[in-house]
């Protein structure tokens, strides 16, 4: 309604006058809001991205009817449009209601008893006939920590197989291996709090405005309140995020390693590095032999400087097409600002040189001492709500054990074998297959029984078509635990188990800044859907009974509820660099998340790691001689971080004459991952109803393409027809397609080439040709 200032003042005066004489002025009906306040508000966390916004869900008569942001959490009550529209995802028409068995190509309803008996039989038979490595589990960074911990214990500790991996292999593995190889331990040392203190932001391979909007809000606010703050945005697309940049560095996709090395070159040649910090806190290493086995060697500062010689800004400009003036400016701003924070996501991680790209960003921080103090930190933004807490930290990935331990390390295996009470030698010492390889093995029949929970590989795997064919095969047995049916994965399953969703079960999530948060159960799951933890525990007991090991299961899986599991998890972290023994369930129920380490119940949590001055209590424990900074996760290097000599290397599939465009995939703010939840919300679907291909206007003109034309994209693996969106966002030679849409499977075109170190596939770059359809 339009009302003028005069009308408002008159109305306000009327209210004031009325109250002055004890009269309550009735509101005109048109101005009255229906109070839809809920009966109760339950504290939880948003279901979606790795930002991990605190949220309250409003419950009335057993239904979630509203949400509001948690004003006492880091997000200060703010949500993005996905979080805003959380309630409808619980009530979508295609909720998976009952266990379903595929018979003659059709799904028929069966009971839970029949489902569990069948599943147990299939897995047990396979183990007896073909060994423990004939079964596998593919988990998720959206599962609760308690769920992932139990499955990890079952497979690695119970069965003695490392055939267990998760979808963070597709998004965060390069960041995880990057942190471990640079600092000795995984996970950022900084926090969102650093944003409030940074004077320079180096944001590379991240469209924060659409992918981490509530974190972006803080960056934007920092910039708005402090005009001297500099924002560098390095991205081949001029995204929504880039609009607030002081410097947008655009470059040919896959050439950013040359750029970051060139920035280091400028920092060294112009004497902008912090010699004292470098001498005190770093060592230099290079790859000697890619192996296997991998061989690395230590080198000197002089050798590093010599390595950087060729990475002049001119050389980087030639390779990347990023103007050398921009590279020099970025380097100087990075080094000379009072505090510089880097932020990145899949642009660096989903690459065949993802680990190297991560190392090179860490190098800049280590060279300049822009680390371990407020505002100065290299901060990897995580994609999923629990990739950190549930998969990376809990050690679900096929090479990991819980809380910073490795299957290949004798001491780590012994420690966990003792902790779990399993016989010495039970845990297999060889890392298991990773995500893409699990599905390759499933295709070949080397893995005969596979359980997929809380993720959608039938849409999200790169080079998708062969894996979908494998999943559909009648020669293997695929179980899918899902909240909805059909999804592009559950439709391929032999057995579908209906899963409770988010607000229908309780558990723990751990987001990007090491903040673990408790999600309280708010409502009951519908029909026969069950929490995954219940199903996993039942399966564990049933399977071991079938294998004649009932008593062992009673010992290993003696959990009545998720709190029992959480208590064991806390114990498992005790004494490690993660130590969150102090995060009791009771405390987590009251808190608005706590950042680990938090070794005791009275410890408030740790905002910044590796610095005694800024509150990391573990510096004194692991490195008593340190006065402030200590990278105590890198014991083998005397608590020093590593500056890596990583040469530039382009993508696995560069463009060529036949396939002259680079295809990159990514996100829109309306949707999350494969759209199984957000596409159920009418408002989000209306705002972003389908996939499209974003084309640069100059490219479009040469090809005779206008917006809304149908366009065919073809890679070496597959093709797709999409509507064109001609917009000045992607640079020339680059096209962008969003990944969310089940009816437009862009992953039929992407490559499954993966990083040699992290095994993370290169979703971000493959070569395509374009023609009008």
């Amino acid at each position, binding site marked *: 309604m339009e009302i003028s200032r005069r009308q408002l003042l008159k109305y306000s005066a009327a209210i004031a006058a009325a109250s002055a004489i004890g009269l309550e002025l009735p509101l005109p009906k048109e101005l009255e809001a229906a109070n839809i306040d809920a009966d109760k508000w339950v504290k939880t966390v948003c279901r979606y991205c790795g930002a991990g916004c605190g949220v309250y869900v409003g419950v009335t008569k057993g239904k979630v009817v509203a949400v509001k942001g948690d004003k006492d959490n880091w997000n200060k009550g*703010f949500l993005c449009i996905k979080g805003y529209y959380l309630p409808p995802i619980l009530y979508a028409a295609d909720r998976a209601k009952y266990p379903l068995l595929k018979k003659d190509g059709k799904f028929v309803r069966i009971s839970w008893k029949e489902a569990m008996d069948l599943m147990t039989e299939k897995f047990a038979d396979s183990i007896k006939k073909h060994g423990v490595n004939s079964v596998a589990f593919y988990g998720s960074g959206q599962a609760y920590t308690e769920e992932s911990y139990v499955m990890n214990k079952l497979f690695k500790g119970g069965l003695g197989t490392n055939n267990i991996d998760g979808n963070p292999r597709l998004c965060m593995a390069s960041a995880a291996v990057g942190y471990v190889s640079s600092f000795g331990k995984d996970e950022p040392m900084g926090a969102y709090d650093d944003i409030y203190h940074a004077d320079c932001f180096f944001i590379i391979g991240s469209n924060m405005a659409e992918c981490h909007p509530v974190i972006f809000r803080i960056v934007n606010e920092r910039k708005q309140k402090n005009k001297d703050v500099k924002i560098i945005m390095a991205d081949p697309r001029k995204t929504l995020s880039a609009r607030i940049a002081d410097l947008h560095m655009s470059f040919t996709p896959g050439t950013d390693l040359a750029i970051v090395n060139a920035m280091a070159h400028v920092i060294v040649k112009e004497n902008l590095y912090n010699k004292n910090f470098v001498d005190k806190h770093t060592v230099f290493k290079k790859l000697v032999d890619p192996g296997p086995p991998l061989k690395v060697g230590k080198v000197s500062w002089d050798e590093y400087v010599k390595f950087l010689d060729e990475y002049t800004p001119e050389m980087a400009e030639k390779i990347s097409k990023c103007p050398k003036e921009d590279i020099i400016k970025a380097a100087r701003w990075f080094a000379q600002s009072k505090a510089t924070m880097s932020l990145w996501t899949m642009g660096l991680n989903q690459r065949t040189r993802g680990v190297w790209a991560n190392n090179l960003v860490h190098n800049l921080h280590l060279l300049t001492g822009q680390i371990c103090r407020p505002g100065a930190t290299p901060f990897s933004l995580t994609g999923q709500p629990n990739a950190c807490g549930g998969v990376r930290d809990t050690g679900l990935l096929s090479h990991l054990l819980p809380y910073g331990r490795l299957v290949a390390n004798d001491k780590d295996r012994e420690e966990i074998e003792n902790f779990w009470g399993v016989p010495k030698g039970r845990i297999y010492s060889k890392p298991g297959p990773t995500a893409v390889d699990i599905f390759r093995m499933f295709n070949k029949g080397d893995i005969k029984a596979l359980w997929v929970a809380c993720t959608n590989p039938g849409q999200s795997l790169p080079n998708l078509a062969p894996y979908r064919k494998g999943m559909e095969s009648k020669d293997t047995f695929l179980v899918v635990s899902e909240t909805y049916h059909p999804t592009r994965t559950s439709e391929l399953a032999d057995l579908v188990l209906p899963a409770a969703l988010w607000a229908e079960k309780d558990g723990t999530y751990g987001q990007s800044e090491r903040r673990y948060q408790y999600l309280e159960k708010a409502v009951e799951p519908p029909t026969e859907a069950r929490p995954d933890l219940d199903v996993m525990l039942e399966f564990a007991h049933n399977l071991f009974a079938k294998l004649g090991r009932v008593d062992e299961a009673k010992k290993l899986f003696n959990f009545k509820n998720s709190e029992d599991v959480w208590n064991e998890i806390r114990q498992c972290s005790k004494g490690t660099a993660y130590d969150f023994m102090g995060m009791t369930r009771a405390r987590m129920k009251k808190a608005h998340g706590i950042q680990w380490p938090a070794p005791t119940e009275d410890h408030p949590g740790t905002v910044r790691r590796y610095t005694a001055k800024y509150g990391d209590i573990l510096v004194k424990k692991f490195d008593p001689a340190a006065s402030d900074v200590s990278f105590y996760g890198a014991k083998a290097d005397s608590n020093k971080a590593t500056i890596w000599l990583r040469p530039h290397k382009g993508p696995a599939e560069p463009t060529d004459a036949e396939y002259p465009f680079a295809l990159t995939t990514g996100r829109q703010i309306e949707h999350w991952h494969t759209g199984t939840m957000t596409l159920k919300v009418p408002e989000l679907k209306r705002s972003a109803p389908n996939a499209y291909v974003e084309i640069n206007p100059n490219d479009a003109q040469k090809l005779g393409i206008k917006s809304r034309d149908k366009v065919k994209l073809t890679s070496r693996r597959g093709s797709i027809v999409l509507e064109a969106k001609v917009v000045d966002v992607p640079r020339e030679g680059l096209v962008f397609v969003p990944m969310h849409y089940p009816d437009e499977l862009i992953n039929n075109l992407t490559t499954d080439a993966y990083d040699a170190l992290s095994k993370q596939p290169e979703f971000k770059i493959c070569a395509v040709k374009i023609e009008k359809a």
Partner: protein
Amino acid sequence: MKRLFIIFLILALPIMVAAKEKGHIKTPETQECAECHKSQAEAWQNGKHEVMGVKCIVCHGSTEKNFIAKPDIYKCRACHGEKVRDVEKKLHPKLKNCFLCHDAHSVTLRFHTKGGE
């Protein structure tokens, strides 16, 4: 006497009439709001909500049966719970509309954008 006069004044004040809520016309699924609602889109483009990705659907729903032409105060609560509570307490516990003071699309204070009348 004074009391009677004040009551008269109150009763004599003009009552604002809100436009009646109506549905949205049928549109193709991929048509963007800005194609028809240019001035609102432009005002939104320069406001705080736009850079935060708070799109039309947040306040107005989709163009189907859940379309809302004039959203009420509870639409704002998910992110601005404190402000909504503040308005309820200080202005009126059942007041419907944040947009008495805030311009609906640029979200600035109305007085400031219009400079008075």
